[in-house]
């Protein structure tokens, strides 16, 4: 750029000046916008930041440790899926009506002869295509369907897991569905998601196996296939190690133990 200006300085004087004149307007815009942005930053920092105080969200500064605010309200109600259409939070069961576009009655669109865009044909409500199905939420509709059948799945705060039961007769899961569900709940409530590295957003599947003895005590906990995240592997192992008992096996079950394969995916 500099070289071409040097060589052409004699010949294109007028052009250079006119180019300078062309730049004046954008420069003014640029300057104006910078000033506006600087003013916004100053205002934001002074007023909006000022309300929070210095300790906002950072807990105390005691010499021993800081206790961190979890929430000002206690544990929220369990968002249980329900078949009641009025009360459900499930996206699949009730759909909101599309908002009706309100037009000013007197406004008549001015036809533009140059336009190449044709006005969109109005589709009546009866002809409207079905909206695409919402993506799966990894949630098993609660209280629907018959007896659960394997593989059993569970969800816990963004993670998803599953079970396979191997009893002596091979039909443990179908005969004692209630026991399988109790195992699933117990693992869910003992798996502490905060043990997983908070920087991890997604991890490959972890496979664990363990046995449940007649007294309900888990034993022989092994990691069949670890994920690529060590802290997730640890938290999965610790969830099982934290459990003292799942409750004794059903009394009419003849085997001495059941083997459980347990996997879960992690996604934050």
């Amino acid at each position, binding site marked *: 750029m500099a070289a071409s200006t040097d060589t052409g300085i004699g010949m294109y004087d007028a052009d250079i000046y006119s180019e300078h004149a062309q730049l004046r307007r954008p420069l003014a815009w640029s300057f104006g916008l910078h000033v506006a942005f600087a003013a916004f930053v100053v205002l934001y920092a002074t007023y909006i930041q000022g309300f929070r105080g210095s300790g906002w969200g950072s807990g105390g500064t005691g010499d021993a440790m800081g206790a961190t605010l*979890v929430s000002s309200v*206690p*544990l929220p109600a369990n968002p249980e899926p329900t*078949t009641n259409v009025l009360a459900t939070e499930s996206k699949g069961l009730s759909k909101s009506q599309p908002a009706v576009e309100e037009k000013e009655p007197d406004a008549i669109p001015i036809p533009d002869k140059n336009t190449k865009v044709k006005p969109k044909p109005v589709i009546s409500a009866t002809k409207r295509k079905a909206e695409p199905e919402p993506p799966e939420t990894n949630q098993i509709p*609660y*209280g629907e369907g018959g007896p659960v059948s394997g593989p059993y799945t569970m969800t816990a705060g963004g993670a998803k897991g599953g079970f396979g039961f191997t009893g002596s007769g091979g039909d443990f899961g179908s005969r004692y569905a209630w026991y399988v569900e109790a195992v699933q709940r117990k693992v*869910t409530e003992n798996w502490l*998601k*905060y043990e997983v590295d908070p920087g991890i957003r997604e991890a490959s599947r972890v496979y664990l196996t363990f046995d449940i003895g007649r007294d309900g005590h888990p034993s022989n906990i092994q990691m069949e296939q670890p994920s690529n995240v060590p802290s997730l592997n640890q938290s999965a192992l610790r969830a099982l190690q934290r459990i003292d008992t799942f409750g004794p096996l059903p009394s009419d079950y003849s085997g001495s133990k059941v083997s459980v394969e347990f996997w879960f995916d992690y996604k934050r």
Partner: protein
Amino acid sequence: MVVALLAVFTAISSAQDWIRTGTGLGVERVRLAAADFKASNSDPNNVNLLKTFNDVLWNDLDNAGIFDLVSKSFYPLQEPGQPSEINFSAWNSPPPNTSMLAFGNLGVAGGKVTVQGWLYDVKNEKSPQVLGKQYSDNATSDAVRVIAHRFADEIIFRLGGGVNGIAETKIYFVSERTGHKEIWMMDYDGANQQQVTHLGSISLSPRISPDGSRLAFSAINKGGWEIMMYSFDLNRIVAFPRFGGMNLSPSWSPDGKIAFSSSRNGYPNIFVVDPSGGNSHRLTEGKGPDVSPSWNRKTGSQIAFVSGRTGLPQIYTMESDGTNLQRLTDQGYAVSPNWSPNGQFLTLSWMRKYGGGEPGSNDLYLMDIASKQWVQLTHDAGRNDFPCWSPDGRHIVFQSHRTGSDQIFSMLADGTNVKQLTFKGANTQPNWSWK
């Protein structure tokens, strides 16, 4: 800036998830229907006993915290009293849409009552039976209450992952209804309130031993405040050493040792003694004051206590040999720590803002020991103090002034389902039995 804020909110919401999971609450509840039990014969005593039985069973299941009880108005008109009378499709589809059904019958014959109860997985028609029980006892209201408690505990044990129900547990507390502060006891639901001590002085801080056979408490007598011991095997106060000074707030370890606060050496410090009161040794030192010890109920290897060593009382933890002292609360006025049965949480009474002009009030909090994160359990409900965990780790009993006088309440460990247990006189300092 926006990114940073989003990150903070994500951290908060996920923190709530794990506290819910840690308390054993908040996971999907089992949908359970409890049909009224039917009379199995035409004895005239059946009506009253059935009413008692059905009410107690329903309350126990409702209080358990792990069931989504199907309202009785949804039940089919034909309720079963026998397995042969079950119409599966009437129960496992809406309106009841239940997955579990408890039902049975009760009959009086010759002064004895016989109760048959079943728990069916009605979504699994091929092998529905989860539980079948038969009970027999004298045909009295008290016996029927016990049978209902036992049947409820069986259901909770099966469906709650092997955690024993609390329907047969007891709560010990201090009551002033006779004019003196004496130790009383009651069922977990507030029924059967009975006086334990008759000292006619002041008795405080009842603490039941892990096996339920002995009750330690502190009482004022000729020598001042001393630790006293009541035996439920002998139904009287038994000998326990006098230490001198002021001895307060005993606490049992899982293996039966007793920690308490004693000023025998001048300042209130935490001491530990054997179950017999021997082999006493001091765990804390300095001016303190150090009071209200509470053992880690799972491991017995740590003790939480209250200390005023920096001014206002704060919660500290240490190993059971006095090492590794850590401060848990960083501000305000924190007292009455109580360790959860799974060893993971402390519940405490905390006035987070304390001092002139501060609008603080005594509320109950739940704190995760490992991360020091906490949630508030009571809100805008007077002074709340002396929280104590139930043995299943799903409930907390506490003292509250919300009705204008000190009374005992229980709630689920997430702060919901608050129930008043006492109404007569002033009742304070509840302690839940270990089993």
